[in-house]
């Protein structure tokens, strides 16, 4: 099945000419795929086929339990983007809607091996010295969510203590209940602190430090 429109394929091929270094995309699905898993796999198969710098590995959430543990995958569909290491960048749910643009932004960022943030924000993030798990609860029709996911993924790339998950709530409605999500994007830091709305890099960095008591 072709997911991308021809005009988008052409744009991506041109855009990917500027990729500097290799990017590995790891997708977790399962043998009997749910429709979201299938769509996710198809999107990533098409995207990875547009540049030799992008490789794709597809694993089974049930059978490949060693890799599930290695990457800390908690649910499917899961997409992980890797450069010279696993930065902790995760998409739980289909990277569709506005999140597709985030996926492409992330691929370009990783190919540059540069999160592209200001020195001031990088300095603040350098104060993070213990594990931080940031989850961004989103809906794919929300333009502000994409900005929030992009920020959190940049943070994950900038500091190895930080992992950043996109969580598409329509695919994981129990998480909307668990975290009492009534509006998106909702950013949850280490399961305890949360903010609703997309924040500028510096403001979110301060929220992360606040969650750590810094």
């Amino acid at each position, binding site marked *: 099945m072709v997911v991308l429109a021809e005009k*988008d394929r052409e744009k991506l091929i041109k855009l990917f000419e500027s990729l500097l270094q290799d990017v590995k995309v790891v997708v977790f699905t399962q043998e009997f795929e749910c429709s979201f898993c299938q769509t996710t796999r198809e999107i990533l198969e098409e995207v990875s086929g547009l540049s030799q710098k992008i490789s794709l590995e597809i694993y089974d959430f049930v059978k490949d339990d060693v890799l599930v543990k290695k990457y800390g995958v908690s649910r499917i569909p899961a997409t992980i983007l890797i450069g010279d290491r696993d930065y902790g960048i995760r998409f739980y749910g289909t990277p*569709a809607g506005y999140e*597709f*643009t985030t996926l492409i932004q992330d691929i370009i960022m990783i190919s540059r091996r540069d999160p592209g943030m200001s020195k001031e924000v990088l300095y603040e993030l350098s104060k993070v010295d213990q594990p931080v798990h940031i989850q961004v609860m989103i809906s*794919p029709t929300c333009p*502000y969510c994409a900005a929030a996911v992009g920020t959190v993924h940049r943070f994950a790339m900038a500091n190895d203590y930080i992992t950043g998950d996109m969580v598409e*709530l329509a695919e994981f409605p129990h998480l909307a209940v668990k975290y*009492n*999500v*009534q509006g998106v994007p909702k950013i949850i830091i280490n399961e305890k602190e949360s903010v609703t709305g997309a924040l500028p890099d510096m403001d979110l960095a301060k929220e992360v430090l606040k969650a750590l008591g810094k």
Partner: protein
Amino acid sequence: MELPGVILDISSISPLRKPDHDTVYDMLILGGGPAAMSAVVYAARKMINLAVITLDFGGQMNETAEVENYLGFPSIRAGDLVTKFKEHTISFDIPVSMGISITEVKRKENTFEVLLEDGTSFFGHTVVFATGKRHRPLTVPGEKELVGKGVAYCATCDAPLYKDKKVVIVGGGNSAFTTALDLLRLNAEAVVVNFIIGWQADEALQQRVRKFGKVQFLDYHEIVSVEGKDKLETVVIRDRRAGEEKKIDANGLFVEIGLLPNSDPVKKLAGLNKHGEVLVDCYCRTNIPGLFGAGDVTDVPHKQIIISAGEGAKAALSAYDYLIEKSQI
């Protein structure tokens, strides 16, 4: 649930040049909605030195699912139309400052200083002020505390969270009915509440909403308060005919009661009407020479994408004429 397909916004990926704080630009275009983007297209083609200062691109279009009244597009996803506008806008390689709010526009002799929230400034010989509008809150008890906890202003963002749930929609215009449509399609149970008698939405849109069974219409009712501890639980409404109050148990409250102009940055400078909109003439001129207004932030009637785009073009052309008259280019 059906996924919305992929949205590829190349303009969000392409790096944009940053404006220079020391340059006095021929024209500063403030805002990122259709008026501002159209102004950029017209100004850039004059080959003048210009810069854009905005929080983001798209404006209110970002919070709409579908557009059915923009010429040439019988029906287009709003996100796709924004992408088309953005790609056209940034194709001119103009410098853009994004993500930092404008706090004030000051007149300094023959130039304008645009102050930003981070304490920095940009300078221009002319300004096209096209900062649009923002959601008008209800200002009832409990609303502020429950924003993001059931009280919502962006149906495009939050509607998917209310699948199979009960919601109250406040408003009687096209935005309220479009929100109702988004939610009813998700099998939500909806109550639409309007302050005045009757409904302002287009008849065609009303008919589409009325086809759904799980929707109730209450005109001439007002919202008294919203209640809930960690999330919205109850909406208290008052029947303005009988004066009786009633409680509605609801998971969500979507507020679509109009908009407020983002005119604060020029309130000390330009003339405003009683709604806070910037007063402009048919050339988009304000009362301050060199300061032009365009789009929803102005007093131009009928807030529509196509009207804003036209006004933005007009403002840019008028500002260009002003620069020639003043021999500043």
